[in-house]
Every structure is written in C-alpha cells, then in structure tokens.
C-alpha cells in the first residue's frame, strides 16, 4: 500500500519536474499513427525524406514556439511574433533577388535579425518597464508590425535565388535534415543556460515576480530579455520561412502566433509563467504538424478538416485534465 503511494508521489514529482511527459506520449502516438499510414516506411531513404520534408515546413512554427515559451516562462505573452515573421519575410523577399552580391544579402539577413531584436526590445519596454498588460500590448504592436509588412509588400511576391532555398530545403547529413540540427543546437544551448543564473532567474520571475524582486533579481531586465529573445526567434523563423517558400507575403506569419502558443501549452508550459520546457514546445509544434498531416493522409472530406483538427487539439489539451479527473475518482 505505502509502496503504491510512494509510486504515485514519485510519478507526480516526475511530472512536475518534466512538464513535457504528456506531450511526449501524444507525440509518440501521433507519430506512430503517421508512420503506419505511410506506405513502405521501411524502404531505404523514406524516413529521411519524410524527416526532411516535414521538418523544413515545421521549423518556422517550432522556432516561434521556442521564443514564445521563453516569454511565457517569464510570465508574459507575445502576440506580435507572427506579425514580426511577416515583416521579416517581406523585407527578405524584396531585398534578396539575386545571389550575385552575397555580402549585401548577408547584410539584409543581419538587418532582419537586428529588427527582430529591436522590435522585441520595444515589446519588452512596453510590457515590463511601463507595466502594460502583455496580451493587449503585444496585440497592439502586432498591428504596427503587420501594417509595416503590408506597406512594404502589398501583394505576395518574391524571387529568392534557388541556390539559397536549396540549402535550406535539401541539406541533410547522415539522413538527418538541417532543421533537426538547428533544433538540437538550440536545445543544447538552452540546456546549458537553464541551469545557470539566467535560467534560475527566469523561472523565479515567472513563478513569483515580487519574491524574485526581493531576493535581488532584476525582474524588469529579465522580462525585457525574454521579449528580445522572442523577437530574435521570430526573425529566425522569418528567415527559415522565406527560404522555405522562396517568396514573401504580408500575412505569412499571421496564423503562426496562435499555433506557437498552442504548441507551447501542449508541451506543458504554463501560461501563468514559471514552469515549462523548450523540448515540450518543440514536441507540441511537431504534434500540431503531425495532426495536420494525419488529416490530409486520411483522405477525409475537406469540409471536415477544420473541425477535426480543432477537436483533436482540444482533446490533446484536455488529456492531462482527464487523466487527473480519473485518478482522483479512484
């Protein structure tokens, strides 16, 4: 009897420390279902091809979800990151049209990154320094960013050189695509930062801001830094998205913001701040992508797709709650 209680207690502790466990389970279920629906998975090169084609599509949302998670860990919310993707996307699309001036192109890319950092800093100043409510403030700034994008490029257009897009779309080493290496690199960097001062401070600020303040944490700085990081990831997502599609559109990022937030919450990150993980958000974004793939593989009537997609997402979000309810009844 006591053994069982210990086990339960242990499982609960494990869950609390590893918020991504449930998303990992859902990830395994959806991925297995996806692989089973694929014909001849075990033929040579099929897995590698699937990895490449899927991860290059998912990477922008995965990057946004990572940035969003950092903001949410600090107790904020960034609704402007998708609009920043649009802005970066149109700037890249109108500026990079030939591969004859690599230095100029590199300068544009660096400019987009700098723009993301500045926009994130602006979000941070408004929310953390002036104490405005994050949700409505970043929504307001998203209007400014998407308006600028529309001003720069009213109609979708773009001609990114194929030499560049090919690198993003088709690079892979040992059958593992470039996108996975990027994700792995970010996760490794985060694993190092997480256990250092910044990581501890970030979780403290998100968990209990006033307590963190009294123990000497510079709450405002930490909060501003989360928005700057989110801006950085938004510009990285813009670069990846531009390389993926080879063109620009002023509404390219509009749908991504909410997907990124959903991915982060699917991954076990709390909206109240202070608890969550990047790996969970990555898994969450992969789950969202896999659900879409499953729906298109199932050859379902296209009118049902929105409904099924939303229902499955709600069920996935509800699964921890359902498990808890069942356990409490027992």
């Amino acid at each position: 009897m006591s053994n069982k209680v210990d086990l339960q207690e242990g499982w609960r502790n494990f869950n609390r420390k590893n918020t991504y466990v449930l998303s990992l389970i859902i990830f395994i279920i959806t991925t297995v279902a996806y692989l089973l629906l694929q014909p001849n998975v075990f033929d040579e090169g099929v897995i590698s091809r699937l990895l490449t084609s899927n991860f290059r599509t998912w990477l922008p949302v995965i990057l946004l979800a990572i940035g969003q998670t950092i903001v949410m860990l600090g107790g904020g919310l960034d609704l402007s990151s998708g609009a920043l993707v649009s802005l970066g996307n149109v700037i890249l699309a109108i500026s990079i049209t030939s591969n004859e001036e690599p230095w100029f192109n590199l300068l544009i890319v660096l400019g987009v990154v700098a723009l993301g950092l500045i926009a994130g800093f602006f979000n941070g100043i408004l929310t953390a320094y002036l104490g405005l409510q994050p949700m409505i403030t970043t929504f307001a700034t998203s209007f400014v960013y998407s308006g600028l994008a529309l001003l720069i490029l009213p109609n979708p257009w773009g001609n990114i050189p194929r030499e560049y897009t090919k690198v993003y779309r088709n690079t892979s080493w040992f059958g593992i695509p470039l996108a996975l290496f990027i994700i792995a690199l970010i996760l490794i960097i985060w694993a190092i930062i997480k256990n250092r001062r910044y990581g501890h401070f970030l979780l403290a600020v998100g968990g209990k801001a006033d307590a963190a303040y009294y123990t000497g944490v510079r709450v405002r700085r930490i909060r501003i830094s989360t928005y700057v990081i989110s801006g950085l990831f938004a510009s990285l997502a813009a670069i990846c998205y531009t390389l993926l599609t080879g063109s620009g559109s002023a509404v390219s990022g509009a749908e991504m913001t909410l997907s990124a937030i959903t991915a982060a919450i699917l991954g076990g990150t709390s909206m109240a701040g202070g608890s969550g993980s990047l790996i969970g958000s990555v898994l969450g974004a992969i789950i969202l992508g896999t659900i879409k793939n499953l729906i298109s593989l199932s050859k379902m009537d296209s009118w049902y797709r929105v409904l099924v997609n939303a229902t499955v997402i709600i069920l996935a979000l509800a699964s921890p709650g359902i498990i808890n309810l069942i356990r409490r009844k027992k």
Partner: protein
Amino acid sequence: MSENIQSSEKKKFTISPQVTALLLALLLFLASGFLPNGFNSVDNAINQAFNILRLSAFLALIAAGQTLVIISGGEGIDLSAGAIVTIAVLFTYKFINGDNAMVLPVLFFVVACGAAIGLFNGLGIAYLKIPPFVMTLGMAGVVTGALLVVTRGLYDGKVAPIMTNVIARDLVWGIPGMLFLWIIFGVFMTILLERTRYGKQLFAIGVNRLTARLSGVRVDRMIVATYSIAGALAAFSGFILVGWLQNAGLLVGNQYLFPSIAAVAVGGTLLSGGKGSYFGTMAGAIVIQLITSLLTTMQLPEAIQQIVYGSILIVLLIVYGREKGIRL
C-alpha cells in the same frame, strides 16, 4: 480599516479610466470635424455621432461577455466570442427567413446555442484545467469547423422586418433603436455586476481564487457559469448584429473579437481580473470605434490604418492601461 484605505485613495486627484476614455472620445470626435470630409453642420455632426454610437453599441455588446470572463481572472479570456457571433448570425439569418413570428423562438434557440458552447468552454477550463486562452481558441476552431461542415460555405435566409425596424432604423426623434437597446443592456449588465450575488462572487474569484473558495464561493461553478453567460451574450450580440447588417457571412464575427478585447482593456478593466465595469467597456467601445471610424473617414491605405490603429492603442494603454502595484 478598508474604509480608511478607500477614503485616503479618494483624496488623491485621479480621473477614472472610464471618464478619461469618454473625454478622449469627445476630443477625437470634435477633431474629426476638421477632416476634409468630416461633418460641417450641427445636424451632420449629430447624425455622425449617432452613427458612431450605433457602431460602438455592437462592439460593446460583443465585449459584454468578454468583460465578465476577464473579470473572473485566472488569465480569463474568451477567444471563441467571434465564432459564436458568427454562428448566431448565420442561425438567425437562416431560421428566421423573413418571418416575424420566428423572431422570439430563434432568439431563444440562438442564445441557448451560445450558452452551450460557453458551457463547454467553462467545463474545460474549470474541471480539465485547460488554460482559457487555448481552450476558447480551440473552441473557436471547433465552432468554425462545424459551421463549414453544416453549411459547406453556402447559406441563405432573410432578416425579419421587425428586427430591421427596431435595430437598424431610427425609433423616435431620429435616435436609432439600437441605442435604446444598448442603454437597457448596459443597465442590466451593471446591475448584474454591482448588485447581485453573482457579481460579488465574480469579483471575488477574480481577485483571488483561493480566498474566494475559503469564504464559500464555489469557484468551479462560477467559472462554468461565467463562460456560459459569456457565450449566451456573444450569441445575443450576433442576433442583434444580423438585424443591422441585414446579411450574413462565414467570418462576420471574427473582425469584432480583438477590438472587443481592446475595448475592455481601454475601459479600465484589468486583464488580470478582479477589477472592471461594464460602463468602462461601453466607454472603451466608443473610443475604439471612433478610432476605426476616423481612420476609415480619412481614407488612408489599409497598411497605414493598421499602423496608426496599433500606435494609438499603444498610446492609450500607456496613458492609463498600466497595471497598478507593479514597481519591479
């Protein structure tokens, strides 16, 4: 003790957000007279004022449920409001089909549908502990998806003449019927918030869920009730909206969603919960609608409109949307 604190607060010279919002609205409206295609006579000005008030009324109706949900705290927000408005618009349009006798039954049916959708939101949030943001976002997807399945993109119908007469036309002395409806609705909402047990408990769970529970409030039930009422109110505003639009659309409600949240925030309701009023939301809706109308009157390109709208919203928030008590 608490009285002491209140009275000392009153001594400081502060203007409440609602009054600021109304003053700002008046200023903006007068400024709009200087536009080349603004009003140029008193009659014209009154006409324009009524027109803007009528448009604000729709925004404020849709923002009513949002106000309740946001006051309830716990990162409360209802992103499904837009989808509920759409479904109410389409149902009303289809089922009334120009028949006066069908108005009341359809109204009940539509409001019940909205309440049922809200009930699911509330159950998911209170018992399954899904964060409101994603729960209601997912619900918006489900509702929109269900609409697509049922309608397959096609819809047909007609508004009843009585709805046109009451909502869209002038009722007496050139005052639109919508404004009377809005005032009655405002009084109802204010009584609900200030004078009922429900309202008191709503503010209590918004300030602190734990203390509310310890003092005997059934928090989970309150959350479920609040999201259900919000759904019902959103459906009611859809019913009214179709009387004004005289037409339906598959995405008609979505454009009101974020402006309605902005109206709540501009009206001085804390997005973190526990503090707010419907009077504030009414004032906020007028401000937001004025800005939109001004930008449209100035005939700026869409891109510039977005940039100006966002910037004005930021300035408004800086002026008086700051959360009190944060000095970190």
